[in-house]
């Protein structure tokens, strides 16, 4: 159990760092989705099923979707400028 907990914490730390250092937003949003899923797993492991439920939908679906839609809009805008 301890090993699993330590491992998931380290994973979260590394994944969070990776999200920050991914400079291309489109790649970053993939990282963010993965990060959200990792957080969900972490919540399950640490006996927080209620939180995990919310996190899986918000962190792995709603938030990335909003970011993607924003990026789509930004790109469309940029193309129409050209």
């Amino acid at each position: 159990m301890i090993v699993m907990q330590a491992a998931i914490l380290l994973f979260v730390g590394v994944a969070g760092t990776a999200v920050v250092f991914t400079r291309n937003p489109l790649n970053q949003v993939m990282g963010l989705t993965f990060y959200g899923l990792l957080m969900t797993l972490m919540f399950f492991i640490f006996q927080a099923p209620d939180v995990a439920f919310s996190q899986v939908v918000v962190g792995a679906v709603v938030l990335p979707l909003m970011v993607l839609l924003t990026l789509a809009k930004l790109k469309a805008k940029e193309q129409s400028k050209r």
Partner: protein
Amino acid sequence: MNHRARTTLFIFGGLGFLCFYIWGLHGLPGFGHYPGPYGDILNSLSVYQRHATDVITAVNFDYRGFDTLGEEFILFTSVMGANLLLRKQKDDREELPPRDEAADRVVPPTSDAVRVTGLALVLPIVVFGLYTISHGQLTPGGGFQGGVILASMPLIIYLCGDYEAFEKVTSHVLSEIAEAIGAGGYAITGLIAFAFGLPYLTNFIPLGETGDVLSSGTIFVISVLTGIEVAAGLVVLMISFFRQALVYRKSGEESGGQQ
């Protein structure tokens, strides 16, 4: 400041802050040694006082229900705010016709298999969402979780390639009204307690049998209202963003998407 100076300033500040923060964290009792007493008291009281077996739901909707009220309104206000910021301006030039964001990329139309699987998922998701909301006081779940699950239903429909169907199931006006009802209902449920001479947000409904769906008094009511508010609020948000992006995924002639 240029990029270099800014980064240098931050490196010093950030390192200092990191050390300071860790210095403070060192005083914690250590991971896995929660000292209590708040959580322990609630763990021992909730089932007996509130007939709710999921203590988290009891905390969210009763013991600390006032926090949740504030937080519901954070959601409500943010949705209103996003609506305001994304509203159509008078001077907006007409957008280009809704085209995919990468017109040169050929994306195959959504296959029937995906559509069937997706649409088959819709019903179970709705049922699951409703179940999560209504059993919040018993098992993991409640208004938040069920609400976000319900809100993901229209998304599945969209991913199945049916933006039209998405628009049909998500009326913007209706969602906005539902959101206001959810948030306002929460505030009003609290006010009703005054009629019984009780403080704000006090339970005034019989508690029922522990373990029943209709047990735990106002927790159940507020949980349902929160479910409505969260689901409707997230749907309104997504509609606002969809309208901005205008990514139609009509099957056949104009297909595409980002994923």
